[in-house]
């Protein structure tokens, strides 16, 4: 294996012209930060690894935030590494090129800490590809103190068990503060034991190793586990019952907590403005600014809405200034304001107005995804029109009948959708994209038919207003019940039912002006057992990877037979993991990880699913989901407006508070005998849109 950056560069020069998109592997982008490895002030070298190709990782905001934060420190450096595309991977193996960082082309082995981001499940096998290319033992148990610390973070860590065999530690929750705590612990441990003083100077050649006999990695893990929010898989034992479910998850080390609570940053740090500007075209080739974290709507299927609580909004001035700074530092033609529900950002109208007023002439395009239909402001559409082309808007109704909307707790009125669609088409935008989900609990073919009907109704509106130019893009995905949501006990729908529903939609949604896409049921199944699996899935993942599974997110490499074989080799059943309905008493594989939600809250919402009970937006009415209980001190330490949870303390009641989620109303068909707070349908936001309308 080649060792030094110089050797690696020479090897790269000889092969890069043979691969697709060689600029993925060369680095050197504007705002990428290259620090001097020979500088003795550098105490920690961190590799931020995104387990997919450059085009998908290049705009990932989470990675950028950590890169920015770490590199701001003079005693640390952070560099990026992405997964190679198979053509380059083959050449790397052939020419003994180890996986290297983009900035300085150091091997991953030369870093102290490797932090993997796990935003979604389809990337899991790529982690193994990268570890293998880096010559790091796949299993954490096989690593020695010579190997870097391999940690993971991101939403995939909320069920860490499937990947638990491969990581020394996994970070639950937000990483902005905890990353420094982890690095500090590592650096102290390294100093104390004199470990891993190997490395490379400016040019070539190792400088002398100085180490005293060292203990195993357990001493490091013992220090890491003391950091709140760090989960060390090795310190927990899982025992199974006769039927295969989990009997118990118990710590086997006195310092390991029985439950690992996620980390929450009390106030979001200032946004990144010096984004790395990719040379090549990447997915979301734009600057992203997070305007709000968390969501108060409580849609029952949505993991992000559950795990990113509490809601914290960024001050408008901070965002506007960030846009200015971003343009000067990066020059992107599009900036996107990210949140889980942008219409719920209090000052969304002011934000868009101010940014377009200032930068509209430079043809700055504003992206505002995640808009709700009900509180969608028509004025907002007019403001977004300035700047560059956008072909249309995206909405996510997810269900097409009122009954099913009550089930998932995402109530919208179809008339609102049609009215909004009309406003969009009237302004000349030709495309409306809508996302629906199939496989919801209690979903019938009638509900699916309603998807087709609603889509055609929207198209009819468009044709009436715009004629032939109007079109509709329908994206239908299959519900995968996710951990830490009220749906975590719901069975995933049978494949035959899914296929029947897709076939129905294929027949209905055809013709000019309709573009229909759906998910491959096998890909969905893989996502399902990866997200709901337990520790035994680690073995399956490794086996499937050995059999050639990789890049599950890319249709052309999706290898279902490898997964089938892997499951067979371990005597496990895919459907048992993915499709089994779980009783609420069962010990779930993520039982020991807490997103800050009380189990009773999730159970209540799970019960409401089958009663069609619609629950308030929790800005209107707090249901004590658990966040305030777990994060009391942090809440008290912040200003009242900093969180959208009620402030704690006497004389501070902002909205009504209950200890259980009491529905506004129940669906007539599903629970005719039950009455909620109201006995008729009311909107979730009764005070109107939260967005403060700008006084003109």
């Amino acid at each position, binding site marked *: 294996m080649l060792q030094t950056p110089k050797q690696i560069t020479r090897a790269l020069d000889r092969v890069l012209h043979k691969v697709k998109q060689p600029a993925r592997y*060369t680095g050197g982008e504007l705002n990428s930060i290259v620090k001097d490895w020979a500088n003795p002030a550098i105490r920690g070298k961190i590799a931020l690894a995104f387990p997919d190709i450059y085009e998908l990782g290049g705009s990932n905001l989470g990675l950028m935030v950590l890169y920015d934060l770490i590199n701001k420190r003079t005693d640390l450096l952070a560099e990026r590494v992405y997964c190679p595309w198979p053509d380059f991977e083959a050449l790397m193996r052939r020419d003994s090129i180890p996986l290297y960082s983009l900035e300085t082309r150091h091997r991953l082995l030369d870093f102290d800490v490797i932090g993997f981001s796990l935003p979604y499940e389809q990337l899991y096998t790529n982690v193994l590809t990268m570890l293998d290319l880096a010559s790091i033992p796949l299993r954490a148990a096989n690593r020695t103190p010579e190997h870097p610390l391999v940690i993971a973070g991101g939403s995939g860590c909320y069920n860490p068990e499937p990947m638990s065999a491969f990581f020394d530690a996994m970070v639950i929750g937000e990483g902005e503060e905890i990353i420094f705590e982890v690095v500090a612990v590592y650096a102290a441990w390294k100093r104390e034991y004199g470990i891993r003083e190997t490395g490379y100077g400016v040019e070539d050649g190792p400088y002398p190793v100085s180490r005293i006999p060292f203990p195993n990695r357990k001493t490091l893990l013992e220090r890491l586990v003391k950091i709140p929010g760090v989960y060390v898989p090795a310190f927990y034992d899982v025992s199974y019952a006769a039927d295969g479910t989990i009997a118990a998850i118990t710590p086997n080390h006195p310092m390991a907590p029985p439950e690992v609570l996620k980390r929450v940053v009390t106030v979001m740090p200032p946004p990144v403005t010096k984004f790395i*500007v990719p040379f090549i075209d990447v997915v979301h080739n734009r600057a992203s600014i997070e305007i709000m974290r968390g969501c108060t709507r409580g849609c029952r299927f949505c993991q992000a809405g559950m795990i990113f609580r509490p809601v914290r909004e960024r001050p408008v001035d901070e965002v506007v200034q960030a846009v200015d700074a971003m343009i000067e530092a990066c020059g992107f033609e599009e900036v996107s304001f990210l949140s889980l529900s942008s219409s719920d950002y209090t000052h969304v109208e002011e934000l868009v107005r101010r940014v377009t007023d200032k930068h509209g002439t430079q043809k700055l395009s504003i992206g505002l995804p995640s808009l709700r239909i009900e509180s969608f402001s028509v004025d907002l559409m007019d403001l977004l029109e300035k700047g560059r082309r956008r072909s249309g808007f995206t909405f996510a109704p997810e269900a097409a009948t009122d009954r099913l909307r009550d089930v998932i707790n995402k109530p919208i009125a179809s008339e609102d959708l049609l009215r909004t669609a009309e406003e969009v088409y009237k302004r000349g935008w030709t495309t409306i994209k809508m996302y629906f989900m199939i496989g919801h609990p209690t979903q019938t073919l009638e509900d699916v038919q309603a998807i087709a009907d609603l889509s055609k109704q929207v198209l009819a509106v468009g044709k009436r207003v715009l004629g032939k130019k109007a079109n509709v*893009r329908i994206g239908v995905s299959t519900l995968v019940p996710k951990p830490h949501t009220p749906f975590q006990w719901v069975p995933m729908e049978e494949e035959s039912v899914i296929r029947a529903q897709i076939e129905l939609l294929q027949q209905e949604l055809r013709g000019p002006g309709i573009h229909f896409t759906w998910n491959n049921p096998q890909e969905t199944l893989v996502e399902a057992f990866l997200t709901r699996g337990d520790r035994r899935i680690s073995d399956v993942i490794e086996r499937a990877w050995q059999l050639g599974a990789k890049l599950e997110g890319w249709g052309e490499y999706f290898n279902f037979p490898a997964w089938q074989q892997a499951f067979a080799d371990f005597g496990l059943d895919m459907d048992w993991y993915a499709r089994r309905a779980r009783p609420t008493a069962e010990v779930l594989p993520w039982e020991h990880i807490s997103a800050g939600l009380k189990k009773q809250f999730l159970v209540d919402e799970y019960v409401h699913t089958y009663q069609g009970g619609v629950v308030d937006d929790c800005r209107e009415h707090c249901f004590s989901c658990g966040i305030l209980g777990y994060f009391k001190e942090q809440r008290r330490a912040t200003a009242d407006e900093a969180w959208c949870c009620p402030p704690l303390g006497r004389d501070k009641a902002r909205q009504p508070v209950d200890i259980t989620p009491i529905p506004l109303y129940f669906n007539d068909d599903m629970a005719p005998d039950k009455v909620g707070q109201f006995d008729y349908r009311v909107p979730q936001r009764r005070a109107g849109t939260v967005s403060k309308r700008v006084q003109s």
Partner: protein
Amino acid sequence: MSTTATDYDLDPADTSATEQPRQRIRLIYEKGELVKFISHQDEFRLWERTLRRANLPLLYKQGFNPQPFMQFASPLGVGITGLREPVDITLSPPVPLAEVERLIREKLPPGIHLQTIEEVPLKTPALYSLLIGADYTILLYAEPGELASSRITQRIEEFLAQSEIVRERERKGEKYTYNLRPLVFVLRYAGYDSASEEHRIFLRVQQREGATGRPDEVVAALGFDDFARTLRRDSLYRSDQPADVATFAAYPVISQAEIQPTKSSRRKPKWGYKRQPPKEQAAVASGRSISERAGDEFV
């Protein structure tokens, strides 16, 4: 996205409502080794972003998807660098040239270097229409002894001895063949540099619309595609520069008809041609750009 298709002359219907004065500036820059692997589209976007960072008032065309008034002479592709590449931009309102130069130098990304900057009259013909030829240096990377100089000179001799070298290319999904040989005016081995371990080959070709000699084609025709290389455009020759015209007076002007006698004969589909039913997502997804595929998933 294509910049060569539009006529640079300002269409009266296209002027912005404010009728502000305009300024046309010609930048000569280097695309260096660091950004060797970026495509022309990437380069276009790179310049647009540089000017936006510099807060220079780049003029945009009207329309649904406004494109900037920025025109290159001839695209440099992936694997091709350029020493003195021209690009014309239009600013409105005008900005003092020294200020433009300062700001651009400050905001250029790594890999691109500004050589010179000058103001040119608004009505100057488009750069792409003025081209007549180009010089390249082909740098083949090889360790000492890996590729004998004699083999290179021999292959060059064989290349030049032929009157017809037929190559196949694809354009907009259609394959076509053309004769590369007449487009190559000079092809000469220029020695091996052992410090940087590269063989140098000098190439001079015609560069005109419909009849352009491409350096990657020449390398492939010579049979050296397996070697790592940089194709470096050293100069572009223009019909409005007397010195350039003089240099190229020695060579004939090759027309498109001469190198491509039979155009491909695939007919366009008739009006009312039925669309195929939507295929499985994987098949449809291939062949589309990353952003297009992502566009299906996200806003």
